[in-house]
């Protein structure tokens, strides 16, 4: 691997970290491309090549993961949580959440257990994946 590829990976990682910090805001591809010092089109393509998914998809699942965290750890109203993590309406949030997690936010809250682990671990490991084995693990963890 060349130094150039290593540097490009680092720049993509900086952009992904930026998504992880600003998930509650609108996805701003030009701003993320600037973080990564590449063009907009090159950014989306390279991000996917590096991490295996588009920035949009990464963000959507980060938002759902953060919503799962807040549902598990707080008693805050679901509408408030949906807006906080970046969804524009409760309807969009509920549909997206069910499609990805396989349960409604209310069902998830009722069946999920608090996880006493550092934030970085929950962010890394609880972000939903389409990998069947991962979904099965999450189902077991949440007692579903």
């Amino acid at each position, binding site marked *: *691997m060349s130094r150039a590829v290593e540097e490009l990976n680092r720049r993509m990682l900086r952009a992904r970290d930026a998504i992880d910090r600003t998930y509650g805001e609108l996805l701003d591809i030009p701003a993320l491309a600037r973080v990564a010092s590449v063009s907009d089109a090159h950014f989306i393509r390279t991000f996917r090549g590096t991490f295996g998914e588009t920035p949009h998809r990464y963000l959507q699942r980060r938002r759902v993961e953060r919503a799962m965290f807040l549902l598990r750890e707080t008693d805050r109203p679901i509408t408030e949580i949906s807006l906080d993590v970046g969804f524009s309406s409760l309807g969009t949030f509920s549909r997206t959440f069910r499609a990805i997690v396989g349960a409604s936010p209310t069902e998830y809250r009722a069946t999920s257990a608090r996880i*006493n682990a550092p*934030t970085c671990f929950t962010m890394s490991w609880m972000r939903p994946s389409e990998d069947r084995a991962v979904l099965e693990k999450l189902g077991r963890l949440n007692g579903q």
Partner: protein
Amino acid sequence: MLSSINMSHIFVSDQDKALEFYCGKLGLEVSADLDLGVMRWLTVRVPGAPGRDILLEKAGPPSMDPKSADQIRELVSKGASGFTVGFTTDNADKTFESLKAKGVEIHDELTKRDYGTDFGIRDPFGNHIRIVQLSYNPNQAQPKAAAAKS
């Protein structure tokens, strides 16, 4: 029985650059810097905390073949080395602001949790480092953490 952790390890792709970061920005000190001929044995530690060294190792021959070393560099630069090492601090807010002012790359912002206040940074190579101000005395026995029903 084991009594303590005395050494941990981080893969870096440039040891001089690693020194600039770990000593120049994080404030660690060099505990050993030896030319072993086939490799540079470079360890750092928290000042005043002897006996817990971090080896800053450059992946490459003869320890491993060039292709494996490339794969390690690729994974680390993509953030796939996971949680590399964790430090404690007496004041997470102050440390966060100080490191940010030095241009250290922030992975995630300050977060208050049951165990304390922590945040994440990245070293120049992509390794993820966490810094925590614990809410308990780490020298006192703590109950083993377990998932609890909320």
